[in-house]
């Protein structure tokens, strides 16, 4: 039987298709064929550093040094010595709300003399992990107990962790107010978080 060119081409084409299907593995079943398909999605999460004072203000109220005393000491842990200030139990609370660990320094926006006035006032800070946030503040800790805080940057936490239950700290304060101090003053506590 003689085949013309058109028939030869047709037979070759059919053979190519069948061989291709064999290698591809397609099945003609009459049913829709579905396969599990996976794809990889790359998500890059930018690092973001953020600090928030969840309690940003602390007020000791008004009072005066008891008569005959050189000065009064008050702190936010509930101690008042030689003064008439009401007992204060409170603190500033600072939270690392970013997604990266930070080093933390504390300083003030004015000198102690400008804040408290009088003869030899002192102003101290103490940093501790907020209840339930054990391990938030690690590394160098200048303020693990009451220590003077001033306009010089001092390391409060060599590492302030982020995330979940390890990212919050309490900052308490202690003031020594000489008997010749006067006036109502305020001070800003500058907390600087720097990427490690």
């Amino acid at each position, binding site marked *: 039987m003689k085949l013309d060119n058109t028939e030869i081409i047709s037979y070759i084409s059919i053979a190519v298709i069948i061989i291709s299907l064999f290698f591809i593995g397609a099945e003609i079943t009459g049913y829709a064929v579905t396969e599990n398909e996976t794809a990889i999605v790359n998500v890059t999460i930018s690092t973001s550093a953020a600090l928030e004072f969840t*309690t940003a203000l602390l007020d000791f109220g008004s009072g005066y040094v008891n008569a005959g005393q050189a000065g009064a000491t008050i702190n936010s842990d509930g101690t008042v010595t030689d003064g008439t200030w009401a007992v204060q139990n409170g603190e500033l609370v600072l939270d690392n709300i970013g997604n990266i660990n930070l080093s933390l320094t504390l300083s003030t926006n004015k000198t102690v003399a400008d804040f408290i006035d009088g003869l030899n006032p002192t102003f101290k800070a103490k940093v501790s992990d907020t209840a339930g946030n054990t391990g938030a503040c690690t590394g160098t800790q200048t303020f693990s107990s009451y220590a003077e805080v001033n306009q010089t940057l001092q390391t409060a936490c060599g590492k302030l962790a982020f995330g979940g239950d390890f990212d919050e700290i309490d900052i308490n*304060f202690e003031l020594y107010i000489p008997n010749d101090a006067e006036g109502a003053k305020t001070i800003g506590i500058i907390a*600087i978080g720097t990427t490690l």
Partner: protein
Amino acid sequence: MKRNIILGLFLLVIIFAEIISAGGVGISPVYYKEFFEPNLEKNFTFNAFNTKAEEGVNIYVKGDLADYVTLSNAYFLGGGEFIVTIKLPTKIEKPGTHEIIIGAIEAKSEIEGATLGGIAAIQGRIDILVPYPGKYSESTFTINNINEGESATYEIETENLGSQYLDIKTTIEVYKNNMSEKVLTKKLKEINLKPKEIFSVIETIDTRNLPPGDYQALAIIDWGQIDKINQTFRIGEFLVEIIDYDYQFEENKINEFNIEIQNKWNTKIDKIFATVSITDEGRFLNSFKTVSVDTAPWETKNLTSYFDTTGLETKRYTANIVLNYGEEISSKLIAIYINESPKERYAKYIIIATIIALSIIATFIYLILKIIKLRKNAKKK
């Protein structure tokens, strides 16, 4: 009248809200790194924000290259994107990393409404790396805590900060018992780094057969000189351990019973609670349960319950503490003591002291009377 009360309460809420008064700032991204090139001009994009949209953010620059930096914006209300443009000089003499600090600080001029207030600031960095003459490299190495049966993941980054090609050979060694016993060694493939090139690898080291405990990992990077970087890591086990507990209690009182526990697993374990049973020479007296707590990996936490000692004698008892976590339990048998209340103890001391004092006084009076009598007798004679 009712309206005034409601208004008063509303104002009170505002006042207390002001005292609490949250405030914060953020910056993103936090870090860029760039190799120094003479007269390099480049822009870096940052975003800064105040957590309160109605408050401002001031932007600032610090560092020894601050003079070569300009900001597209130095203030935002709420937040926004800004461009940091650097125009470096022809030469920087000092080799190494020069940090340009980009900071965002809450725009607060004065603290109002309280004695002191917090001002939050956050700082990101642009590191400019000035190559060292000749051969020089710096590396970082970190390794993760894991659980028993897992391989530890580590990350090494080595930078060629010199002006010559470097052949880098890296070995990781794992020790236990404070570097006294080597348990694993892994040699990485030798690589060749051209100047300014960074080699970074995140891989695992096969620690699957190591038992739980604390380990030290040492990365030794040989680039002509040897750099050694030491890190510690822990292999955890699915265990919650009792590390401390109360054992002295007051009689006829509801006492707090505290149990300190530690999660020894590198994953959180939730719903941990303890049941405490009190016995006296095998005879069951009382039992109680603590509240349940959730713990983060390696976290130490306190379980609290209450022990009523009403009707119990002051003496030594036995307590069995059974910890429940997941499907596991662990237990500890301890001795506890019920002591007299301080009031009773002091009352006893006072009675004893009074008796002694009265005895001394009585003896003293007797002796005085005896002496008087003897003297009288002596005079009569």
